[in-house]
């Protein structure tokens, strides 16, 4: 489902990702740990086809990036630090816009709003909503087109426990989708991971199955 073979992505002369290799089967979850600046967000953006790999092979959903990026775009959902929503528009308008872009029927918008429990505030401008509500709408946006692959950058930040329970069916392990999740929370991260990727300064220092990784190893990354 995802194959990375010595992926390199530079920023100027610095290597933001350096020889990262990974193999993730369909339906499994890899959790990415690492301090700030380790390359977690860069990795997610490369997988999302927003950044092109500078060297190494990247295969996502059986397609080679960057050449076949256009084929996989509609099958990936990215939930990043930014909600990717327009503040002056309402949640409904934002979702309608994304539905049109992804050629998804408009009925799905209402479904998703209900799924994240945002129907009662769906027609107020986004800038009047709290951070947690915006994040819920962002989850709706990221899953609107039923993507096969979910790329989640610290998805549970800004969400209270009730909200987390709401979104789990959509973006959690039980959604059944293949997931790449970046996380700062070792216990929750290890609990939902099938595979663990530990990044430090762009290098993959941990690439192991989740049961083989202990919390102290994760803590080492941050030292």
């Amino acid at each position, binding site marked *: 489902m995802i194959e990375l073979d010595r992926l390199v992505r530079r920023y100027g002369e610095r290597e933001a990702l350096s020889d990262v290799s990974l193999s993730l089967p369909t339906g499994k979850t890899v959790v990415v740990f690492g301090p700030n600046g380790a390359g977690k967000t860069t990795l997610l953006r490369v997988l999302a086809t927003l*950044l092109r790999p500078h060297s190494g092979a990247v295969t996502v959903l059986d397609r080679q990036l960057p050449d076949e990026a256009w084929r996989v775009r509609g099958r990936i959902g990215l939930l990043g630090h930014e*909600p*990717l929503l327009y503040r002056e*528009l309402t949640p409904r*308008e934002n979702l309608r816009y994304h539905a049109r*872009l992804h050629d998804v029927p408009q009925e799905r918008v209402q479904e998703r709003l209900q799924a994240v429990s945002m129907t009662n505030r769906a027609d107020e401008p986004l800038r009047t909503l709290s951070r947690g509500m915006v994040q819920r709408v962002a989850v709706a946006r990221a899953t609107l087109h039923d993507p096969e692959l979910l790329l989640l950058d610290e998805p549970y930040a800004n969400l209270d426990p009730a909200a987390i329970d709401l979104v789990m069916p959509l973006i959690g392990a039980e959604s059944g989708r293949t997931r790449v999740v970046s996380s700062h929370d070792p216990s929750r991260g290890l609990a939902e991971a099938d595979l663990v990727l530990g990044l430090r300064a762009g290098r993959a220092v941990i690439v192991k199955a989740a049961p083989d990784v202990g919390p102290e190893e994760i803590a080492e990354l941050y030292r």
Partner: protein
Amino acid sequence: MRRTVGALVRKELLVELRTLESVPGMALFAVTTFVVFHFALNQNTVSGQEAAGILWVTLLFAAMLGVNRLFVADADQGGFDGFLLAPVDRTALLLAKALALLCYLLVLELVAVPAFGLLLLGPPLGQALPGLLAPLALGDLGVAAIGTLVAALAVRTRARDLLGPLLALPLLVPIVIGCARASAPLLVSAHPGGPALRWIATLALYDLVFGLIAYAVFDFLLED
């Protein structure tokens, strides 16, 4: 492609209607500038080439306000990413933004041209108006194409408000030449002529060439 452009234009116009960030400012700027010109020139009316010059320079600078704001919401609120993640042809963004800018310019002119006729123009506007439509339309197309390209170029840089107009104004000089020269014979009281065909042709050619160039290079501004 059409669906994508439609979705994008709808979103653009919706955001603009909600925020009213561009169009009222552009229109107000134009009217205020006419007033300033009255005092700067110390004249009650203008006609001929002078009138054409004042009209086009004012429209141009007002357009710059719109160009500056064209991609700002997308750059600041993750609009680029949201678009780039969609399985659509990326040139649709160029078309949609240019169409939106064109709409803004049309509204601007609906306000500014009558205001010009009222405040500064000596000869009656009514007789000049039919002839003015062609330069206005072609000028708008040129500003839309070049303005969108320049706006996309400038928005993800550090000095975006400054670079936009600095890049756009030289590129728009031929449009100013064409429009101002085409309109000058229309704005005289005695025996107003029609716009010279040579200027209309120049404008059309310039619009075509830069439209094609913008179409060809735009994708490179979006990819990373």
